């Protein structure tokens, strides 16, 4: 599955989030490619799941979005995304 992490610039928070999600997927034996991107480019990119914070989530009306409370706290990220990732990866 393909996961897109999104923040304002695509080079800071979303990149750190992508690293965390890669770890989480690996630990749970889920094959996923994770890419980070900026808010403006995100709508044009394909993904099975978009992961971002509440403030930026609203623009993704018709997409599958997981809202995270933290870009860096692995425990919180796991709580916020793992169930959805498991469901999608089926």
């Amino acid at each position, binding site marked *: 599955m393909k996961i897109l992490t999104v*923040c*304002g*610039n*695509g*080079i*800071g*928070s979303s*990149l*750190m989030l992508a*690293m*965390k999600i*890669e770890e989480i997927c690996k630990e749970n034996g889920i094959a996923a490619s994770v890419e*980070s991107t*900026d*808010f403006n480019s995100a709508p044009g990119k394909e993904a099975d799941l978009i992961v971002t*914070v509440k*403030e*930026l989530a609203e623009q993704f009306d018709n997409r599958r979005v997981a809202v995270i*409370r*933290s*870009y*860096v*706290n692995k425990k919180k990220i796991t709580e916020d995304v793992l169930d959805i990732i498991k469901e999608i990866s089926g």
Partner: protein
Amino acid sequence: MIEKLFTEKTVAVDVAAKDWEEAVRAGGKLLVAAGCAEEAYVTAMLDNIRRMGQYIVIAPGLAMPHARPECGVKRIGMGLVRLSSPVCFGNEEYDPVDLLITFCAVDQSTHIEALAELMQIIEDEEFLAQVRSGMEKDAILDYIQSKKFIKADD
């Protein structure tokens, strides 16, 4: 890698700022003074926060202001600011902020190693607690220089 980025010029302690804008400016000024970014980068960091919101406050009391590479970055840089008194960014979960880590990157990828190491700093609660309780600038730099970073295994 990160030990080369946090330097005498990019770390400042007990910085006075009356609001988040002043705090971000103070952090940006360090990157400019160190020759990592142009003045325009500081403005871009402020604009980002105004436009995109307060999500750059990424952990309790810790903000990570930054902007895009094309907004006046000269070379990769990272800075740390400890405020003498905390300011609010408007982030419900993690305000008030007393530590800022600013960074500038030249593209989307060459700083990945630095960011991976930075995450290990952010997760080093003991170190952050020491920084907050008045750790001297030299001691902060020494700590970062000597910290053993775990490399990503892939």
